[in-house]
């Protein structure tokens, strides 16, 4: 790689690799998000009625959010089963990051419902489960989706750092570019990552507006 190589011609020459890394990146984010949603949404529904568990769950999720991402990847490497070098460790870390916005928004969405609506539901003889699934959940859906949207954008960004522990994805270009002082390499990772984040933001935002009940 020569320093005078322009960014554009680098993109053209390596388009197959860039596309491959982008797909890797998307897979990493998608798997992490699916797991985070499968944990975060049910957990959020579970803590609605349980005051003690609520502060513990939200507290732990907040702590993960405060750990710098590079440090979190580092911490996970020596842990058996979930740790080590590679995709699995990266996915665990990404799930931990994505959890807080999903959990918090699920909880806020489910509890931020007009008290008159909940009072009616109870007085009409709906069971607690019916109130949760037929009233609270549909009314909270837009707020929950806003949490998923935030989490997705965070995850797309954090996933670039996962390349540091050998998880692949667009971060591979960025780390190599930093090591070789090559703007073209850095941009080959950064531009697709930014585009992914914008696309995710746009489409999830669209979905969120469609689900909003006023």
């Amino acid at each position, binding site marked *: 790689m020569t320093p005078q190589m322009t960014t554009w011609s680098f993109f053209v020459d390596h388009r197959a690799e860039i596309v491959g890394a982008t797909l890797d990146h998307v897979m990493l984010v998608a798997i992490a998000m699916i797991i985070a949603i499968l944990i975060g949404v049910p957990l959020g529904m579970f803590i609605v009625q349980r005051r003690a568990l609520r502060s513990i769950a939200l507290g732990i999720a907040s702590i993960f959010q405060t750990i710098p991402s590079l440090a979190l990847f580092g911490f996970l490497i020596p842990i058996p089963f979930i740790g080590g070098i590679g995709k699995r460790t990266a996915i665990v870390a990404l799930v931990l990051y994505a959890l807080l916005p999903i959990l918090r928004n699920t909880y806020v969405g489910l509890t931020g419902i007009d008290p*008159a609506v909940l009072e009616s*539901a*109870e*007085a*009409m*003889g709906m069971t607690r489960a019916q109130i949760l699934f037929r009233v609270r959940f549909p*009314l909270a859906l837009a707020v929950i989706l806003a949490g998923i949207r935030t989490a997705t954008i965070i995850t797309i960004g954090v996933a670039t750092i996962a390349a540091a522990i050998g998880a692949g994805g667009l971060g591979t270009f960025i780390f190599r570019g930093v090591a070789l002082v090559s703007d073209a390499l850095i941009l080959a990772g950064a531009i697709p990552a930014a585009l992914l984040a914008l696309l995710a933001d746009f489409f999830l935002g669209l979905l969120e507006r469609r689900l909003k009940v*006023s």
Partner: protein
Amino acid sequence: MNTKPALSDKETIQFREVSFHINDIPSRSIVSGISLAVSHGETLVLLGRSGSGKTTLLRLINGMLFPSQGEVLVQERSTRDWDLIRLRRGIGYVIQDAGLFPHFTVAENIGLVPSLEKWDRCRTAVRVGELLTLVGLDPSEFADRRPRELSGGQRQRVGVARALAADPPILLMDEPFGALDPVTRAELQREFSALARRLGKTIVFVTHDLREALLLASRIVLLEAGRIVASATPQEFLRLEHPEVRAFTSSLALTPGAPA
């Protein structure tokens, strides 16, 4: 034993020496020493100032609250012994903001209890049409609207229709017309008064508006600081000498245009 949510027609509501307090420190008494019987087909109005315990009495009837002392009987059975889901499905409930489900259409709101009771689709649809007509809304125009597309008065009409959906023998109403503009309020009061007479339901109606009480009640029960201070027919009520009654009647006299 019975699968039908049967509050039978003959039965009434009965409060036996009921007190309710909240176990704060110090514990706060909300209502105390309440003994009251509501007979079938009666429209009992609970009248009182804010904080007099009217809403608490209402919520003691459908098991949203339970007495700290004494007991509340519905159909001669204590609310503690009722399956609460069955009890509540046999009692219509209308509140001030209507509490309509914003993600349901008008028809889905009205058809909720029937759908919980597993009525078939066709029967529910017919019932929804009947009820919309009953509360003065054209089914073809309103059935598919969302609550946000209705005016306050229309929302309250839907609230009444929803409460009547499974034909419950008892109706509880907590200041249902309180948030409406005066013209709409008067209109709904008149219509509801006629409707109540036709339906023959046992109705417990909470209000702080004496004129509304006089219009709708077959009996007015006046509450002051959690106790019953008067119980009378509307005609008798105006002649009572109790200071709290006088406070209410004089507020009426002060209102411009009120009957002297």
